[in-house]
Every structure is written in structure tokens, then in C-alpha cells.
């Protein structure tokens, strides 16, 4: 998909909520919450449960939620359903009625659904004034179930100190809220109180619980209007907003100019000109790559001798560092020239081979250019000249074979030497090595010896062959030929 022309500045009335990175998550959860509460179409049975001396309205058990999730979201593993349910609870969409811990338990624990007013998608960022009003209100109500927990009492004490000057205002607001609450129906109040408490459990979590409202600071900064007045849970307008230290006024996105669109057009034209490979070829290449390397992937195949992380045996690392490579490692050199050169032992072997063919200057040139690209800037010019003298100048001691076009380009580049002056030449030489010397290297005795771990002891090999013959003869005497063949085939 080419660059979208999504105009970030199209907003005046842009959906502020859509800017929140969690909005996608909230919409997905809300989708589930709607379905799970819909009793007409396979939702969970929300009912009143008789407990001890009272009735508990509008609840459902944890295991019923787990079952529903497994059935309706095709989840096979209970643990996964609990994990998902706990995520939903952590964001405050469901909550246990008897404690503050927002996780889902697969048992008879009773849960209630949160009121849409309190949903996180409404972008609540409740100020401490709201929290103070809430805690204060709780102390005014003479109900055992509304008693403050220790951490809440501590929070209240701290807020009283912080808001000492406007405590009267907060107290008045709390009284007003308490009055409104008292007017409500008893059952309705029970439900609302628990929902309000669950809301605060999300925004002012119990110490030790994860705060799901914490935002990645990289995302915080992008808020469109960080200076906006944050809405209060209790409808309180507060003038003294704290300025966030990390919010910067967002730049109004500038309108695309003619030059912008022209640049886009030339970019799109280059894209169009690009040769796209067929999907089937690409898929095949991916498959064969992974297949080839899977035996070297410690997450898929057990490494030999043993994974140094399991059992603290570091032999594997010692072997990798040694210049005496295992057959397994040598086999990898055969995958591609890039792989062979990645391994220092492979590089050495290939260099030795090239020396025997009197063409080592190619690899030495390639290595010199790789090194040049990593040099500090002030050394680049001198080094580039040295490389030119060694490999390309007339009468160079390690003269490499370049086509005239690359030669011309390179000598031009050397007028203003930089890190990439030899890029064309390097690519040319690499292709040359790949198509020519590399395949001969793989067929060479030196490589084959390492690959097959051949030791130059022909006598013992013959000795082994004779003893094998003796063995088969003696076995042949006691087995039928069919069984013997079977044995031979399976060995």
C-alpha cells in the first residue's frame, strides 16, 4: 500500500479518543463485553444471588465467564481464557465484588460488569481532587462495606495534606455527592457503589497491583490537546490544572504543497518500475531458507554439544570460538558465500583456497573495503587511496580484475574518496567470487575433508572395511538374506 494521504491536520473536531493507542484494545474488549452481557443471544446469566442475610444483585461467577470466553472465542486452553479475562478485568470492565484485585478466577467468585459511564474508552484521567472527593464521601457513609482499606486511608491522609487549602471545597463536594447517593434506590446504590469503587481500583490501584492506565511516555506526548480541561467524574470544574512536563504543544500539521505531491509522484513512479517477484517464488524462498537453517536454530533443534544456558556448560561457546570447526559448522559454509564469510574460520579457509589458486587478491580486496566502511571519517580518504594503490592502480601488487565500467566509476569516485567509493567494484568482485571461486572451493579437497571430517589414514579405512566384511559374512550365516538386507538398509 503506497503512502497514505492521511491528513493528520484534518481535525478540528477530530475524534480525540481515536488518538489513544489503547482505543483499539478498548473497542475489542467492549465488543466482547456487549456480547457477553446479551442474555438474549448466548450471554452469561446475570442474576441476583442470595447470600447470608442479603441478596447480591447483578452478578455472575468467574467460571461462567471463563466458560463463555472459551465457547465464544474458540479458546481451547482454560489458562488462556483466564489470561484474557484477567486482561479485561485489569482494564476495569469486570470486577470481583468482594475484593480489589482485578483478575479473573475460574471458580465461584462473583463478578459484576462495569457501567459504560466508567469505561476506559471515555478517556478518564481523574484528577486527585476527584479521588479526594470520593474517599471523603466514603467516610461519610456509615456502612461497613464502605470502610476505607489501609492504603485508602493513607491516600486520604496524604490528599488532606496536599489539598489543605481547599479542603473545605472538597468536603462540600463530597457531602453533595453523598446526598445524591442517599436518594437512590437501595439495590441500585449497591451496584453503583461497587462500580465506582472498581473505577478507582483501575485509576488508583491497590499497591502491588499493576496500573493499567500507565501509558508509554512515547505515546503520551502525542495527545492532540494536552492542555484541555480534563473532565471530572463528579462534574467538578477545577481551575488549577497541573501542567504536564512532557506535553509539548502539538504542531499543526502543514498542508501538502505542490512540491510534496510531485515528490510523492516520482516516488510512486519508482515503486511502479520496481520488478516485483512472484509471491509463490518468494514463499518458496522463505520456506527453503527456514528449512535450511532450522537445524542451526537452537529454539527448534537441540544444539550440540549442549545449550550453554541449560546446565551451565559452556563447551558450545568454546567450540564456536575455536578455529577448529565442527562438521556441522562447516556445512553452513556451503549454504552461501555470505555464510562462509560470516564465520572467521570459513573466511580463513576460503582465503587459503584462493591463495592456492593465486586469486586471493579478490577476497583481500573485498575484506579491505568492508573494513574501510567501518573506519572513522578522518581515516577514510587515506585508506581509500591505499586500497586503490594496492589493488587497482596500474602496476598494483594485488591487481584485481574489474570490468572497464566499474573501473571508470571507481577512479571517478576516488577524486572525492568516501566510504562508498568502492561499492560498485566490491559488488562486482563479490559476484565474481560467488559464481567462480566459491563453487570450486566447495568441491575442493580442503573443504570436503573438513565437511566429512576425513582424516588422512587410508590404512585404517581398509582395515575397517575388511572387518565389516567379516562381520557381514558371520551374520549372513545365521540370518536369511531378506533379514540381512533389512538390517543393512536400516543401519
Amino acid at each position, binding site marked *: 500500500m503506497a503512502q497514505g494521504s492521511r491528513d*493528520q491536520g484534518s481535525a478540528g473536531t477530530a475524534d480525540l479518543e481515536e488518538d489513544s493507542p489503547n482505543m483499539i484494545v478498548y473497542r475489542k474488549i467492549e465488543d466482547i463485553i456487549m456480547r457477553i452481557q446479551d442474555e438474549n443471544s448466548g450471554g452469561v446469566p446475570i442474576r441476583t444471588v442470595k447470600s447470608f442475610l442479603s441478596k447480591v444483585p447483578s452478578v455472575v461467577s468467574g467460571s461462567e465467564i471463563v466458560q463463555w470466553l472459551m465457547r465464544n472465542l474458540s479458546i481451547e486452553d482454560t489458562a488462556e481464557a483466564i489470561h484474557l479475562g484477567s486482561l479485561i478485568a485489569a482494564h476495569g470492565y469486570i470486577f470481583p465484588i468482594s475484593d480489589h484485585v482485578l483478575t479473573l478466577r475460574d471458580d465461584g467468585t462473583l463478578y459484576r460488569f462495569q457501567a459504560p459511564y466508567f469505561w476506559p474508552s471515555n478517556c478518564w484521567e481523574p484528577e486527585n481532587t476527584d479521588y479526594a472527593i470520593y474517599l471523603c464521601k466514603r467516610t461519610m457513609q456509615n456502612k461497613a462495606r464502605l470502610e476505607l482499606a489501609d492504603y485508602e486511608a493513607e491516600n486520604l491522609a496524604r490528599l488532606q495534606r496536599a489539598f489543605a487549602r481547599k479542603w473545605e471545597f472538597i468536603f462540600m463536594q463530597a457531602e453533595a455527592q453523598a446526598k445524591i447517593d442517599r436518594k437512590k434506590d437501595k439495590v441500585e446504590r449497591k451496584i453503583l457503589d461497587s462500580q465506582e469503587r472498581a473505577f478507582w481500583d483501575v485509576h488508583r490501584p491497590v499497591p502491588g497491583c499493576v496500573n493499567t492506565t500507565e501509558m508509554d511516555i512515547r505515546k503520551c506526548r502525542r495527545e492532540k490537546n494536552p492542555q484541555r480541561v480534563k473532565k471530572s467524574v463528579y462534574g467538578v470544574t477545577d481551575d488549577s490544572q497541573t501542567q504536564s512536563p512532557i506535553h509539548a504543544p502539538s504542531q499543526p500539521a502543514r498542508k501538502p504543497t505542490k512540491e510534496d505531491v510531485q515528490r510523492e509522484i516520482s516516488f510512486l513512479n519508482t515503486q511502479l518500475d520496481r520488478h516485483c517477484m512472484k509471491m509463490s517464488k518468494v514463499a518458496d524462498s522463505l520456506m527453503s531458507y527456514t528449512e535450511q537453517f532450522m537445524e542451526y536454530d537452537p529454539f527448534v533443534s537441540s544444539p550440540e554439544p549442549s545449550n550453554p544456558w541449560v546446565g551451565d556448560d559452556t563447551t558450545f561457546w568454546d567450540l564456536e570460538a575455536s578455529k577448529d570447526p565442527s562438521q556441522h559448522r562447516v556445512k553452513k559454509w556451503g549454504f552461501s558465500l555470505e555464510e562462509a564469510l560470516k564465520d572467521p574460520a570459513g573466511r580463513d579457509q576460503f582465503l587459503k583456497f584462493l591463495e592456492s589458486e593465486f586469486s586471493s587478491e579478490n577476497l583481500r580486496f573485498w575484506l579491505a573495503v568492508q573494513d574501510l566502511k567501518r573506519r572513522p*571519517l578522518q581515516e577514510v580518504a587515506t585508506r581509500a587511496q591505499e586500497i586503490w594503490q594496492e589493488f587497482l592502480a596500474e602496476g598494483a601488487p594485488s591487481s584485481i580484475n574489474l570490468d572497464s565500467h566499474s573501473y571508470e566509476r571507481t577512479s571517478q569516485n576516488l577524486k572525492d574518496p568516501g566510504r562508498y567509493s568502492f561499492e560498485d567494484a566490491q559488488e562486482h568482485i563479490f559476484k565474481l567470487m560467488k559464481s567462480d571461486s566459491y563453487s570450486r572451493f566447495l568441491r575442493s579437497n580442503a573443504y570436503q575433508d573438513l565437511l566429512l571430517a576425513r582424516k588422512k589414514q587410508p590404512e585404517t579405512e581398509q582395515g575397517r572395511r575388511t572387518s565389516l566384511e567379516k562381520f557381514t559374512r558371520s551374520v549372513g550365516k545365521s540370518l536369511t538374506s531378506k533379514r540381512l538386507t533389512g538390517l543393512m538398509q536400516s543401519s
Partner: protein
Amino acid sequence: MGEMEQLRKEAESLKDEITAARKAVNDASLQDTVSGTAVVGRVQLKTRKTLRGHLAKIYAMHWSTDSKLCVSASQDGKLIVWDSHTTNKVNAIPLKSSWVMTCAYAPSGNMVACGGLDNMCSIYNLKAKDGNVKVMRELAAHTGYLSCCRFLSDSEIITSSGDCTCVLWDIETGTQKTVFAGHLGDCMSLAVSPDFKTFISGACDSTAKLWDIREGQCRQTFGGHESDINAIAFFPNGNAVITGSDDATCKLYDLRADQELITYQDSSIMCGVTSIAPSLSGRLILAGYDDFNCNIWDSLKSERVGVLAGHDNRVSCIGVTADGMACCTGSWDSFLKIWN
């Protein structure tokens, strides 16, 4: 029709042509091609080490090329270099700004870099003669937070920023060599190709871009995600790219086919992807999520084959060693865990 209108129409029709060209090469999906292959068996990785020492959220980690040392950055204002095998802290570097968001280890092992809300990339020399780790360079020019940085060598480093650009710096002189502009949203993450000739960036405009380091141009753009791309990595063969996004999915894009090959998603995964890394062969993709877990995907069959559960808060970063032996996860719970 004004000139602007005409230009816009031209751009639109080119986009349609490109979509058609991509459709034309779409002769077989990855699913079809791999239908004969079996899913990789259930992958069960265990926590082998837990690295304790940070006092606040860990935002980033990066392995050294020796597969044993790694560096991590935390909002407690420290950069810690760990010998992950012994769990010893090799260096604990105090930072000037505690709002750090990224860290990187140089391939040579001689330097580490970090940056964040200070809009700068600070380079630290680990091998100073007197043994003290000091700031070597402070690369300042970005007008937004530093979201990611990766060394090309001891002389050059690439950074991505919240100012929507990526920059190639010369470390010695502390100057900007190339500015890669084009993204329409904060750049969140970058990854360098195995051959060091190109790099990819993922941004909050939901696109990933492939850049040519030498030419300074954007070569390709990949869309399809519905929200910010938080994490990006190269497939080990260097021909494909994997991304992780706030839309709860990961995608695999192929550079040669110039389009998306496959999406890794599940109806029970609701939260954003924060970090991503392929296993050595590329057959497995490990992705860290906001729901405190890491999921392991079979990259070809697009099925979940494992879960790393053990963190008590969001997984913010993940990395697989160069030798493929282990993976490290860092979390907002202030711990790093090594798994295999």
C-alpha cells in the same frame, strides 16, 4: 481543474496501478505454499536467568554480538551492561536524563548508546583506558524524543525519533550525515539489514519504510497496519521484514514481492505488540505484548506455538542472541529474563 487537483489525481492513479501490480504477482499465498509443511511443534522455553537490578520500568535492551553481554535501559536513569550468563553487572552507567527509551550495543562491543526524552543520542565508550565509562559523544539535532538507535560500526549510528525522521550520524564528528524524512508520524523503531546497506523503520503513521543508507532515499513503503507500528525487525535472510503494532497484530512483509505476506493474529489477543524478534532460522517469531506475555509464532504457518509468561507487567523489549541460543525479555516490572 487546478494544478494541485491534477497532481493529486495523478498520484491516486499511480497508487491504483501499484495495487494492481502487487495483485498481479500475488499468484499464491504463503498459506498455499506451506500447506504441505507441518506446524513446528509446541515450543516451551524456560526462564534460565533473571537479571535483577533495575529499580523502575525497563524500556529497552540489546544483545552484544558475542551473545553473552547485553545492555538494558531503565527509567531509573541507569544503563546496565550485564554478563547475562553469570548475571553479573559489568557496568552500571548513570544517565543525565532518566527518561531513557532506547539503548544499543555496538557490533564491536566497544560502545553503547542510549537516548530518550532528552532528544539526544548519547554514546558511551566502554573500553576507555582508565576503565571509567564516560560519555563519548552527545548527538543532538532531533526535535523529538529518541525512540531507537542502532550502530553500523564504531563510526556511524542510525537513530529514529519522535520528530518523524531517522538520522545517520558520524560519531567522531557528532554530525548528521543523512536525514531520512518521509514518515507522517513518530518513528518508533528501526532495524538494520544483515548486509548493513539498508534499514527499516516503523512509525505511528502505521507504515514501515525501507531506506537505502548510501542514497538516503526511501526505497519502499509498507502499509496494512491499523495503528502505530511499535516494533520492527529483519527476517534473517534480509529479504523480509516483520512488524508489531498497537492493533494487536504482527505482519511479515517481503521486500522483493513488495507486499504483506502474512498477518499473525488471534481473536484472543487484544493488546498491542511492543517488541519483536525472529529466531535464528526465522521459523519462529517472538513478540512481546502489553498483556505481560510473549507469544511465539510459527512464521510460516501463522500459528501460535508457545507463550513466555513470567513477567508481572508489560513486556517492553525482546532480543534473540546472534547465535540464536537464547532470548531476553525486558519488562516494566523492572526485570530481564533469559529464556530458551
